[in-house]
């Protein structure tokens, strides 16, 4: 054991190795696993700044660095620590090491000369050296204004922890998933784009050896080295990779369906009962040895992504466990919105909200980090801010940055997420916490209660006390027990006082200056109420505290309330799997929220994994409660599922579909109010309400919205590439039906494929027959793609499709 630790340490943290002997003496340190850093705040500051770092496996004897300088480390608990530093420290990644290994932050912390540096330098890239290389090679970027750099991107891939050598030189490592593209250097406010592309070369010692396995083979195969991957891995993997994206149609379409899918789908999927439930139960529940199978893989991916692709289904179908996929999804580079927008802005694009929607569609349709994006979208419907609000109407980059908070923390800790959300200027503006100040009795001013009330009601504990399984606790008279009272709302309202525009100080900045939309709000102590407060659970907040530590204390109290586990878990289950989870299901997930198995509370990746791998999600619910299991598909997920299934794209990788909410009701951060597009507890009048159940999406499902959506689908299915028309109007998002044209000559096979992709093999046999008959009425002389388009319309508009289960 010590020898292993030593090797790891030497390999991974280099200069910290001197401290090894100290670390090894600590039994506590030995007990911990490898540390991770999920986030830190603030993102910049002068010497003397105290940085809150959040992650896992911190120990009391951990050590920290910024760049290459050793800095002060203050242990709080395994998930939180403070890092502070003095003079002589330069910008760089934050590193935290324990006895086992070291972790580096994805972003650099930026050391600034003062606490209000004004604007950060505009980075400019003048050269790349070399201008090509394989993953793992080091590239030197020359230019100016690199002192404040936080990230380096190669195309859409983030390079972990670049090294700022000087204000004119920054070095970065080519990420493993990178493909050829331009280099972007990002600081907190601006981005620089290289004029030349950096060419990622295939193979080389590094890629070859690391990507030997199946997982990365898929990635590289997809982007550049299609030929070699296909060749080497042959039948299984090669088929999977190329089937989806490149060569598709002719050979692989046939072989894949024949081999993997049809066995499961055609015979089974059609006769509802047999395959669907049968297949999934054995696949998921008994788990162990057998392969997952195509229909169960499709069902899982429908819950976990923005819609499965055939290649993904086939890949997962042969696996025997969901864990490798989940792990791969946890580790894949997040697709963030702000860096993309900054890149767009740098190349002259106007910052309009459509750019943000475009970034979201690109990420959800083509992003590799599907699970993270899906969870982030669910979080965006719980921790709501919205463009439909005066102060945020034109805050394009700020809202993108807010969404990035959700993306970055989707697999992080809920406590960290809560703090980043609380301090974000978008939430500050949306729920009027920014500029909230201590009571001013002489002028009859109270503290604003808005954020205090809603953070409790909507973001953490809810109105009534819950059991671990999400059911309400009752008093002796059978009445629900409120979690907090009005006096406690007023107390918490006074905690949330004294937060103003990020980076500023003084009365003028607090009361007048517009907030810097990309910086967390800062504390303005003179506006903070320092009297004692009573908050939820009759908890006392002591008098005389600084604003930020007090806010953190209050967030700790909220975060540790026993309601949070069941409250958050139930909502996430409703978003991903089923509207009416059994109390036992909620309890199992809430238990993981409370403790991920390593003593960490609020680990969202562990929660997501628990939701998706639970027996109720993996076939148990469908088998035992077929009348209630599942959920009405979220409207905009219909759009993304359809586009993903057929590799839809627009010119230049853009998705010019600016107002998804017009027909599909939802769009990221465009809810009508903090209560989201629909409430998690909505029940439509009739059978569902009468049974005491909920079906939230029905709040936005009515005659007007159904008609609008069906008519929009009628238009959308007509926009596609075919052999006859390979380059349709470049301003539209278009399906690619070319790889389906062979299949369309065989309507039963085509319908089965659609069934697998869009309905997880759950299509009733009568519907299958109807769709086959309809396809057969369309002569091939019109083009095989017409059959795909027409059948797709009927499927997507059918009630049989409408429920995800």
């Amino acid at each position, binding site marked *: 054991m010590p020898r292993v630790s030593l090797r790891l340490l030497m390999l991974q943290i280099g200069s910290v190795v001197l401290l090894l002997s100290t670390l090894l003496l600590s039994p506590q340190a030995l007990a911990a696993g490898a540390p991770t850093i999920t986030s830190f705040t603030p993102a910049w500051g002068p010497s003397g700044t105290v940085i809150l770092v959040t992650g896992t496996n911190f120990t009391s004897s951990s050590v920290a660095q910024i760049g290459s300088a050793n800095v002060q480390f203050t242990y709080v608990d395994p998930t939180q620590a403070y890092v502070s530093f003095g003079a002589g420290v330069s910008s760089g990644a934050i590193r935290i090491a324990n006895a086992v290994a070291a972790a580096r932050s994805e972003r650099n912390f930026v050391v600034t000369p003062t606490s209000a540096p004004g604007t950060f330098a505009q980075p400019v890239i003048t050269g790349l050296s070399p201008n090509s290389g394989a993953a793992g090679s080091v590239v030197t970027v020359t230019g100016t204004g690199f002192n404040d750099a936080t990230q380096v991107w190669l195309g859409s891939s983030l390079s972990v922890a670049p090294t700022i050598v000087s204000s004119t030189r920054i070095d970065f490592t080519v990420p493993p998933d990178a493909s050829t593209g331009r280099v972007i250097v990002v600081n907190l406010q601006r981005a620089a784009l290289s004029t030349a592309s950096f060419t990622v070369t295939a193979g080389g010692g590094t890629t070859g050896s690391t990507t030997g396995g199946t997982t990365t083979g898929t990635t590289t195969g997809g982007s550049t080295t299609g030929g070699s991957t296909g060749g080497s891995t042959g039948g299984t993997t090669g088929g999977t990779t190329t089937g989806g994206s490149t060569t598709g149609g002719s050979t692989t379409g046939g072989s894949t369906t024949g081999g993997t899918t049809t066995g499961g789908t055609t015979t089974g999927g059609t006769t509802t009962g047999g395959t669907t439930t049968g297949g999934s139960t054995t696949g998921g529940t008994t788990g162990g040895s057998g392969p997952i199978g195509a229909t169960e893989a499709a069902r899982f991916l429908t819950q976990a992504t923005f819609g499965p692709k055939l290649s993904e289904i086939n890949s997962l179908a042969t696996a025997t466990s969901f864990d490798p996929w989940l792990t791969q999804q946890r580790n894949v580079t997040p697709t963030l919105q702000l860096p993309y927008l900054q890149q767009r802005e740098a190349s002259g694009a106007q910052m309009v909200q459509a750019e943000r929607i475009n970034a979201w569609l690109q990420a959800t349709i083509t992003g590799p980090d599907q699970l993270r994006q899906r969870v982030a979208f669910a979080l965006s419907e719980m921790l709501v801010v919205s463009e439909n609000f005066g102060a945020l109407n034109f805050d394009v980059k700020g809202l993108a940055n807010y969404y990035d908070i959700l993306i970055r923390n989707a697999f992080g800790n809920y406590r960290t997420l809560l703090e980043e959300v609380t301090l974000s200027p978008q939430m500050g503006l949306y729920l009027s916490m920014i500029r909230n100040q201590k009571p001013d009795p002489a002028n009859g001013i109270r503290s604003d209660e808005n954020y205090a009330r809603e953070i409790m009601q909507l973001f953490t504990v809810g109105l009534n006390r819950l059991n671990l399984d999400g059911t309400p606790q009752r008093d002796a008279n059978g009445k629900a027990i*409120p979690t907090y009272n*009005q006096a406690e709302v007023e107390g918490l309202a006074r905690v949330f006082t004294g937060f103003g525009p990020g980076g500023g100080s003084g009365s003028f900045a607090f009361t007048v200056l517009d907030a810097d939309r990309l910086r967390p709000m800062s504390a303005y102590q003179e506006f903070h109420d320092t009297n004692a407060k009573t908050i939820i659970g009759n908890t006392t907040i002591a008098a005389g505290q600084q604003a930020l530590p007090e806010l953190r204390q209050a967030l700790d109290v909220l975060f540790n309330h026993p309601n949070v586990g069941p409250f958050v878990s139930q909502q996430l289950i409703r978003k991903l799997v089923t509207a009416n989870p059994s109390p036992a299901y909620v309890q199992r997930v809430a238990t993981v929220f409370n403790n991920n198995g390593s003593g960490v509370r609020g680990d969202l990746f562990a929660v997501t994994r628990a939701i998706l791998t639970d027996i109720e999600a993996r076939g148990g619910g469908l088998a035992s409660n077929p009348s209630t299991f599942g959920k009405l598909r979220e409207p905009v997920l219909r759009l993304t599922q359809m586009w993903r299934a057929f590799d839809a794209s627009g010119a230049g990788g853009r998705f010019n579909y600016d107002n998804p909410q017009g027909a599909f009701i939802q769009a990221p951060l465009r809810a009508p*109010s903090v209560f989201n597009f629909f409430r998690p507890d909505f029940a439509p009048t009739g059978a569902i309400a009468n049974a005491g159940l909920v079906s939230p999406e029905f709040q936005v499902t009515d005659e007007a919205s159904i008609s609008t959506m069906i008519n929009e689908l009628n238009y959308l299915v007509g926009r596609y590439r075919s052999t006859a028309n390979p380059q349709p109007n470049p301003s539209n998002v278009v399906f690619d039906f070319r790889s389906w044209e062979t299949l369309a000559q065989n309507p039963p096979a085509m319908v089965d494929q659609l069934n697998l992709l869009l309905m997880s093999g759950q299509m009733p046999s009568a519907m299958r027959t109807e769709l086959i008959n309809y396809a057969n009425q369309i002569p091939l002389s019109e083009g095989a793609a017409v059959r795909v388009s027409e059948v797709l319309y009927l499927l997507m508009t059918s009630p049989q499709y409408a429920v995800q289960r």
Partner: protein
Amino acid sequence: MNILKKATRRDVLRLGVQTAASSSMLATLGTYQRAMAAVDTRGYKALVCVFLYGGNDGFNLVVPRSSPAYNTYAASRRNLALAQNSLLAINPLTSDGNQYGLHPNCAGLQNLFESSRMAIVANTGTLIQPTTPAQFRAANVPLPPNLFSHADQSQQWQTSIPNSIQPQGWGGRIADLLNAQGYGNPNLATNISLNGSNIWQGGNNTIFYTLGENGAPVLYDYQYPGYRSGTRRASFDRLLQQATASTDGNLHFREYTRSVNRTIASSQYVNNALNAAPALTTVFPSSGIGNQLRLAARMISARSQLGLSRQLFFVGLNGFDQHDNHLSAHGGLLSQLSPALKAFYDATVEMGIQNSVTAFTASDFGRTLSSNGTGSVAGSDHGWGNHHLVIGGAVQGRRIYGSMPDLSLNGPNDAGSGRIVPTISTDQYSATLARWFGADDSDLDLLFPNLRNFSTRNLAFV
């Protein structure tokens, strides 16, 4: 007229089976003629709920303009106070010794009030029983659950059943009973929403029909039935029939299937009726609330074609939750609301049906009198009692009903921070509207279970 006379408690639970979902997909001549006959013999009435989402600040809608009441108001509201000389004077026939005015952006409402077409119902809110501030503070009387919470208070406004597990709106329960009395039309729900989903219109068995601001969009294959020689429409219909006849008992699936059937059944029916109805010349303001009320007026003008003699409409306006930037944002919303309500009333006059149509406001709650900030972040927080408006030819207008509260902080009506304890219950307010719509005294106890806790059962404003 007693619309509910045959209803019993059992009926309330049992009746109302005549939902649109169970109807045939196309109008039959017989149904249509039967509905027409109903219109002819039983007259017409419409009730229009105007929901001000987020909690309208009624204390800046109706404001004392004479001293010393104005001074009390200004001392409590501080930087949320409207200027005394900006108020639009109203001259109620009722008097409590003070003079009152309306918000300066409410010229249309001032006109309606002064011409006796509008009444103000003072300090109304959710209650279980009459409650004083002292009782509220001591918590020694039953109180509405989750006071000051948007979701819960707007639900109680719409249901009149505190903390109901299955929210059924009182508008929906009225429709249940109307249907049981033969007022329903199998082709179209009695309840029409112009503002999407709401609680007020959902009954035990009654489903409401939702129109977009621009009417009922017709499905492409129904608008162009000849597309692909009708083969796609035929397949679409067969898939829907399969879903409808399916033995698949999944509740989400069944509900969605019902919704699609209702969409198809009603959209053409409504469009045909709207196209055949007399055109309106009244000009509505071009705003969301203006468009909704215009469409409600058009649906009333099409009442003969629609074959409905009782209709309940729901319209909504969002954005009243002004914790920041209160004066400016509230003024902006009222400048949309006032002309839209005036135009709606004018349209009913144009149709000659103003005495049969009553519109009323509802909202989550009132707001705190006290302010929560300075400058642009001056706003108000969630309150309780609130002033409301009732508009129509049948309204005993130019009057203020109930008592205007003392607006002093920590005064006799204050629960704290200027959260004014209501002196009229939403049950009394809503029951008065239901009575006008045709419910008799015994029906009201079924619709409003807590009404019996209040001595005045009829506020007689309409």
